[in-house]
């Protein structure tokens, strides 16, 4: 028998009985970060391939949503801080060992660049937009002049943005459920998948929807592979990691994860997209919406489950 008790009582608010440092703000931001990373990556990629006219929604329309989405995400992050008045301290230093610091600076780069990137496309759609504003005209000119370097920067930055959200969580070795290097690639692939789903929803062109459907199938298959390997890795790892995996294999998260994220969010969209490729007519919005839903629920569950896993005193429920 082994019985452990905290006899002096420890009930630090937010720490015990289960860690609750992060609420809805962080998963929402992680979802938005992944979505924007996907949008910007595909926009830049197809722009560099000079297929901007062929794939209008991907290259020109989707990036219009990036700045407002990022603004919402950044606001959610701000709301999460418990010492809000000091948030500016984040930008007085860069700490290479802290993924949170990388994230803050990456966003600092991505946000203005995404505004610059979106401006020419906004002008195309609404030629009269801010026509008389000198600054807007100047910025639009710059954006058109430097479009290629910005696109290359986005290829690089969107991969960092998509991946760092997972690396951020996996850097917290004290939370065994997050402590897997697979989380970085998983969030990257999931983010790109939600990006393609978003583009599919926006697109009015059949060829574009087909192409992104195929890309999405590949991404979903990769995601399924990564999730399975993540659990295999946990089960072959230390006791704390096994206990963390058991949260999803018989524990409290089993039903929601395997139903909503895995089946409805990954397997069903994959099958539907496959059927569409084969010629069956199914409204394309269905797999796209399911992928988006699966993406956001994945992040909510991962953030919550990670906080439920710990090294010591796991008896506190």
């Amino acid at each position, binding site marked *: 028998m082994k019985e452990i008790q905290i006899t002096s009582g420890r009930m630090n608010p937010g720490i015990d009985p289960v860690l609750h440092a992060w609420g809805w703000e962080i998963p929402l931001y992680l979802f938005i970060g992944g979505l924007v990373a996907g949008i910007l990556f595909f926009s830049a990629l197809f722009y560099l391939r000079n297929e901007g006219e062929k794939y209008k929604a991907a290259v020109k329309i989707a990036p219009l949503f990036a700045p407002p989405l990022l603004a919402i995400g950044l606001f959610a992050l701000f709301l999460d801080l418990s010492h809000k*008045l*000091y948030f500016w301290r984040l930008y007085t230093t860069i700490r290479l060992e802290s993924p949170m610091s990388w994230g803050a600076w990456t966003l600092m780069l991505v946000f203005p660049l995404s505004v610059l990137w979106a401006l020419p496309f906004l002008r195309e759609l609404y030629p009269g937009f801010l026509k008389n504003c000198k600054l807007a005209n100047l910025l639009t000119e710059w954006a058109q002049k430097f479009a290629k370097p910005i696109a290359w920067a986005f290829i690089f930055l969107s991969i960092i943005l998509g991946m760092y959200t997972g690396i951020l969580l996996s850097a917290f070795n004290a939370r065994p459920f997050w402590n897997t290097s697979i989380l970085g690639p998983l969030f990257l692939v999931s983010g790109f998948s939600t990006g393609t789903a978003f583009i599919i929803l926006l697109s009015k062109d059949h060829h574009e929807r087909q192409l992104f459907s195929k890309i999405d199938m590949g991404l979903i298959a990769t995601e399924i592979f990564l999730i399975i390997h993540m659990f295999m890795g946990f089960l072959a790892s230390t006791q704390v990691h096994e206990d963390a995996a058991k949260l999803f294999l018989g524990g409290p998260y089993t039903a929601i994860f395997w139903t909503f994220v895995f089946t409805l969010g990954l397997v069903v969209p994959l099958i539907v997209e496959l059927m569409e490729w084969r010629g069956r007519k199914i409204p394309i919005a269905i797999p796209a919406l399911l992928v988006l839903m699966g993406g956001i629920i994945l992040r909510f569950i991962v953030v919550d489950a990670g906080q439920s896993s710990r090294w010591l005193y796991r008896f506190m429920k």
Partner: protein
Amino acid sequence: MPRYAMAIDTKRCVGCADCVVACQTENNVPLGYCRDWIVQEMTGSFPDLFLEIRSERCNHCEDAPCVRTCPTGASHIAEGGIVLVTHEECIGCKACISSCPYDARYVHPEGYVDKCTFCIHRVREGENPACVSVCPTHAMIFGDLEDENSEISIALRTRKHKALIPEAGTKPHVYYLL
């Protein structure tokens, strides 16, 4: 350069929790929070039972993950290896809270993150931390590991000891004498 550490003699600790209360009084810890706590671990099968009582706190790790993940540098290593939080630099992102395998930190109601400081304000005056000073059974030793004649160095040399979950890889500096 001193290297501070603490050793708790599990054979002397009776779990009275004086250290818990002394810390809360000395450091104005808000009501409902604690920077240190008492754990009792019972192993064996009646009548062959073995009880270990420990007073736990922030381990002021040498390879502190809380310092590594802090995006502003508010969480830093000060003199003697003591891990501190600079209140005005803390943004309350709670990365450090998620990084601590010992769950030793908490968010102070004023917004910044707080934890045991090895009573650095007392240590700078040459005194022991509050918890060590009040322990009625003298179960706690605090000192400089660099000084080979300090009480703690002698205790760690002569007694069997352990640290909590060393496999978490943080190199903790709170030891338990067995």
